[in-house]
């Protein structure tokens, strides 16, 4: 029951047949480490994530989804050819829309600290509406 609190966090299993099973498993594994981890990840949801891939490209987008292998889905994703390009001219980018980065192609992930939280988007970002301290 205690686990269920944090999961506005929508931990959903892909296999819909085993939804209840997954839920049960989640409940079974209610360890504090898992709870912290889930909370951390949930806090990142909806925030800007800057990811560097193994070929040097940088993708900046809103963190929308992840899974166990750290495959990340970014919404409203912008692609830069390199970090230098990203910092030098933020307009020199390509808009990709929704992009999925396989976990094994990720080198670095950077989370933006609280800054660009506009009201109309932040509704729905936090479960309780209060700003969170950035994960460090």
């Amino acid at each position: 029951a205690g686990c269920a609190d944090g999961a506005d966090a929508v931990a959903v299993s892909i296999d819909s047949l085993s939804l209840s099973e997954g839920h049960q498993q989640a409940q079974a594994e209610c360890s504090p480490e898992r709870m912290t981890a889930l909370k951390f990840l949930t806090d990142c949801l909806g925030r800007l994530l800057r990811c560097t891939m193994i070929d040097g490209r940088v993708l900046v987008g809103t963190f929308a989804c992840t899974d166990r292998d750290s495959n990340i889905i970014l919404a409203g994703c912008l692609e830069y050819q390199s970090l230098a390009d990203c910092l030098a001219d933020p307009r020199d980018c390509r808009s990709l829309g929704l992009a999925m980065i396989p976990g094994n192609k990720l080198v670095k992930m950077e989370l933006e600290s609280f800054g660009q939280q506009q009201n109309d988007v932040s509704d729905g970002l936090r479960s309780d509406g209060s700003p969170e301290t950035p994960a460090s």
Partner: protein
Amino acid sequence: SMTSSSNDSQQLGQLLQEPGSHQQQQSDYSDITEQFKSAACHLQLGELLQHQSFSLYDAMTAIEMMEPKMDSGMRLDREILHPQRSAGGPLMKLSDLTDAELLGVMDESLACLASWLDGESALQSVFINLYLQCIDKIECQPLRTFCHGLLCLLQRAKDLITLANTTDEEDFNPLLYGFEAAAAEAADDERITSALKEADDDIGRRVKAGQLAAGHRLVQHRLRLLRSLLLLLRQFHRMLQAMGSGGSADLPDSALSVTSTAVVDAAELVSPAAAEAAAEVRRQLESASSACAAVAASLEVGQPAAGRDDPRLKAYGVQGFEPLANLRQLPPSFPRCVRVFERPAAVAYLARCLDCFRQFLTDVTPAACPSYQQLYTRLALVCGLSSDAPCFARSCLRLLYCCPAQQQQLHSYGINLGLGSARLFGRHSPVEFLLASVKQFCPIAAGADLNASVRQLQGQSRQLADSLCLQLGRALLHQVCPLFSRNRSRKREKLAACLDALWPLYESCYCLDRALFPNDECRSLFLPYLTFYLFRLSRLYLLSGFSLQLYARHELPSVYFMLGDGYMYFLLVGIVQADLAIQQQLQLTHNPYTKLSRQHHRYHQQVQTLYQHHLSMLRASNYLATATFYALAALHSDGKMQQLASPHPAGESSAFKHRYQPLLQRPFLPRSITCYTNLQTMWDSRTTFNGQLDDSELDEGQQRKPASTPADVYAEATREFEKARDALMKVVNAASSSAGSNSKSAPSLATVCIEDWDGEAMIKVAKTNMVVTKLLAAGHRAGPQHPAELDFSVCPHYPVIKLLAPTAASSAAVAAAAPSSNGK
């Protein structure tokens, strides 16, 4: 508050639409890589952590990065050329290009041009030549003028094709993706054609003087080709302008009516300016064709495009070409790798464009007063050219025969040919032309002078005649002629629109016939004519479903029902009756003892032959369709083909109505039974042993057919196949024997372009199926343990029935179902 609208995923990203907003955040990012990864490990296998408004559907539509098929921006091992950064480098030399390199660039550009004309997007065909983006930097003069010429040609061709408005979606992509500026700049074709000539002459001089290798002569051919193409287009525009506006297009409908005496002004068509321009066009055409041939003969010299097959891994191989350069301007998903034409194919494509151009310029020059024969030939050309020709040629043809040259009016005519187009009809009123065509269809019914009889009509009948002729003419010319375009699904839609336009005229035709021949009940003229069209168009509509693969297996019986006795039959009857009436009259009036009568008789017979020929073709395909229907019914009841049963019998009636909606609007339905009920009756009576038919649905007098065994139905099918085979052979033999004598009988409006007719293939199908059904009728290989399959490879519209070897599954199924079934 949590919103759950589907737009949320976009909303999520909306704060990022302003890239500048990042600027403040540069210092605000913190590295969470390790933390993230270790946190993610706590998720279960298959468990997702997702934002509230993120759905599984979204997950499926995301682009996967670093996956070559989806990620077009992926960094590759090789250097990707950039128009500014790579210019001057070894892969994109600006000067001192060798012969092979220069010719490689030019030939590959021509290949890209052909691909673009064929429908590829400019960004992935023409503009992979990066020289086009930095022309001013090029020091090699031939290359520079070539690039200028190419851009100019691009702009001209695009203007022409978009003006003509003949293309559907995938035929042609007019977007120039922001390169319009460069193209417009280069659009001064006076300057460019003279620059091309200069470059051409310059090379000639230098080769003669020994400064350049002889191989450079080949460059001249390419320059000449570009130049002639540009001049061709320019002269073509001049010619169109000189020929003036459409003449009778500006007349109101009342002036175009059959009973008016307005005269169409066609003087401009044959003015000296027009003739001169036409001569110029022809000259440029010849010059372009010979240049094309010279290019085709020397394609092997240019540097080949080695990396054409996999541009991701290999450099393209031609100086300055980079297929991946422009991808950032395309939408990010699914990087389509465009296959540019091979060079020989590309040159052949351009040559074909020129050939088509030549064909409609020399065969059908606009003339002031063409004979009806010439008119028919023109229309045949328009129809025939439309289906297969390159869109460039089609566009030129449309512009040639279309009405006024002003842009707005052209666009407002849409796909219309222009009913009053003087270029097409000369001085003839198109309505007169229609009457002549009708008369040719049923000459005896028309009598000696149809025009006079029509003009004699009074009052309401006259109005009817006027409006009907106008509507019919408009429908036929506007809709039937432009029907045949490359895009087959659009064609199907257009066919449906044609049928919608023609069916309402059915009643008017009947009334007009009665008004014209008030004393002669059997004599009808306009009605069979219209019915003939409806017949052809309906058939085309049904057949188009095959090439588009629209029909599910269980729909096949209904398709053949419609193609055969179920629907087509009624139309055929209408036409055939008129024919029979004519034949009878012919016999009655034929007096073998007078020479005049004999000559008269022979003439009518000759003219009739053409229509009868086409009627026989259609009748033969009718038989074949009916035969196939019977065969399918038998196969189904014999258990050989289970897939013929509809998976949703309850909704079948409405599915049927949807599928055949354009065909089912016919008025004057003789009975209250719908087509669908007919189908049910015909099918059920042949497939069920205990025909559970609802007697209340039958009309009075209609007998319920006794339930038949599969053997009976097979026999029925065999007989029909035999009839089909005989009819087909008669048609094919008649066609081959009269091919020579066709010179006397003119082609006619109603018979241009009977598509989808392959007599030989259909004979093969009929023969094979006849044998198969005969065997099956005799009980050979009966029962579901010998399944059957339909083979559409011989003829795409009519399948060959193939008996398969008994499979374990079918045998087991039979054994399980009925232990005491018939033995093998």
